């Protein structure tokens, strides 16, 4: 246990240094904020253009989309923060053979490396939300009583994300340098099917079924319920109580943890067998 903790701590420190020490702290803060805020502004302009040409405002739909998009920052950062560890150590820094041979848990090392990205993402989420509330009229009215539930939901949502990221890491043991495709594509699945930007009811029936099978859908719904309880947008999940969703997230995080172990170990086994642990695919 002590080794796990030490690995986690050192990997988290390493991840933070790799993410942030390429520039001055103020520039790193600006960098960390500009990307997600610009991402939010794409949606703001999409809404604005629709409102201009249709001469129709829909503040509830806008707030729904904005809050979902703010929390989606976690999805991109945590997933990328986990699965890119293997590819960057293998292809870019070419240090994977040394880390891999060290007497540590490589799984814990990856989780540690991802932690700094979670911290930076949390900062970006907070800035994006505050900006939306004060400058764009986004409707956020969280009560004090909802805070513990919100924190618990966030922790469980992040645990599920980490586990999914490790699953992808296990797959990327065997794939070529597809970091960007994965970084765009896998979050894209959640972007479309988890009711992040629009209610699930917009999707065809099979899409709704896919969305309901992904635990992140419930995480986004619960988060939005707690932060913006007055939106009144039908999400097709109103039959579930807050506590039921929380319980579902708890079960999902345990299940995904088991799945991540299985996929990671399987990917690792086949990569070792095929001699792919430290391959480089520089085209």
């Amino acid at each position, binding site marked *: 246990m002590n080794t796990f903790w030490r690995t986690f701590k050192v990997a988290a420190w390493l991840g933070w240094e790799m993410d942030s020490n390429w520039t001055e702290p103020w520039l790193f803060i600006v960098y960390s904020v*500009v990307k997600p805020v610009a991402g939010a502004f794409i949606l703001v302009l999409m809404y604005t253009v629709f409102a201009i040409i249709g001469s*129709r405002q829909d503040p509830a739909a806008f707030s729904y989309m904005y809050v979902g998009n703010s929390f989606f920052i976690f999805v991109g950062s945590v997933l990328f923060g986990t699965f890119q560890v293997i590819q960057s150590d293998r292809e870019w820094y070419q240090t994977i053979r040394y880390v891999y041979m060290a007497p540590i848990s490589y799984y814990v090392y990856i989780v540690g490396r991802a932690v700094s990205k979670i911290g930076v993402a949390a900062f970006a989420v907070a800035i994006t939300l505050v900006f939306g509330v004060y400058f764009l009229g986004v409707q956020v009215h969280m009560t004090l009583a909802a805070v513990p539930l919100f924190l618990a939901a966030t922790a469980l949502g992040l645990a599920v994300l980490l586990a999914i990221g490790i699953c992808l890491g296990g797959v990327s043991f065997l794939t070529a340098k597809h970091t960007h495709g994965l970084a765009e594509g896998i979050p894209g699945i959640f972007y479309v099917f988890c009711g992040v930007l629009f209610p699930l009811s917009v999707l065809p029936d099979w899409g709704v079924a896919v969305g309901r099978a992904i635990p992140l859908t419930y995480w986004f719904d619960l988060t939005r319920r707690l932060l913006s309880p007055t939106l009144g947008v039908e999400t097709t999940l109103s039959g579930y109580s807050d506590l039921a969703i929380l319980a579902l997230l708890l079960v999902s995080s345990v299940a995904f943890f088991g799945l991540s172990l299985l996929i990671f170990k399987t990917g690792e086994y086949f990569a070792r067998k095929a001699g792919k642990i430290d391959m480089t695919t*520089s085209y």
Partner: protein
Amino acid sequence: MSAGTVRRTDLRYRIALNLRAVVGRSYPRIIGANREPSWIFFEGLLPLLGIAAYVFIYQSFGARALEAAAGDPAAQAAIKANTNALVASVVLGGTMVAFWLNVLWSMASQLYWEKEIGNLQLYMMAPMNRMALLGGMAVGGMFMTSVRAVSTLVAGIVVFGVVFQVADPLMLLAVFFVALTALYGLGMMFASLYLLWGREAWNLSALMEEPIFFSSGFYFPVGGLFRVPGWGPVVAILGSFVPATFGLDALRQLTLSRTAFGGQLWIFDVKTELYILVFMAVLFLILARYSLRYLELLAKREGKLTSRHQ
């Protein structure tokens, strides 16, 4: 003059050498892609989902607007037409996203990446012109990216039922290829700049994703920015330094007709935008040539040409 020197200064020999370099550098991107079929799934199909999300946003807005306009057939028809035009805008933007990402990650960052993995010194020792090297990267990159761009277009038409009305296909092709040339010219210029930088290069490329998608109007007609009072026009003008802005605006006019969105969201007419793109293409290629030569010299002088992981 020795026979070797005569041969090296012979124009035909130099052209053939540089053409071979173009083919040689584009080869791994074109053939490498075929040898790694998983690439089509990861780079071609998965990214479609992100674009689908933007399509569904407009469809969601459209559905709510249709509900509100129940009983007014004229308003409903207008909402449907506008929604189709916006979805088509997203699909076109999605094709351009593919090329922009390729410019950032496979052109601009490529020399930096080659430095990191130790190939750069080999390129520098080879007798061809460096522009031929960058040209080969661009040709290979365009081919690789076309797969994703085409799959985005096909998905837009087949899955989302987007209707394009192309009245002037020759002009469409001209705008498309000139925009691509300008984009890759910009990428070549960045490639040389990145030679001097260390990890800032990677982060700069990452920083030029969402902010450029936003300021260049990849997912909405960029004219919408001019309708936002105050900061909107400033952002749009800054964004128009990226050729994709005018390229997309012209492509949208050519495929959706100038009357789409009530004709109120276009920047200039197509011909003016084509001229601007031609100017940008020439300018960026010239700047790329000079900056590559200058920065190569500077990198050699400062000893950064082969220094990795900085």
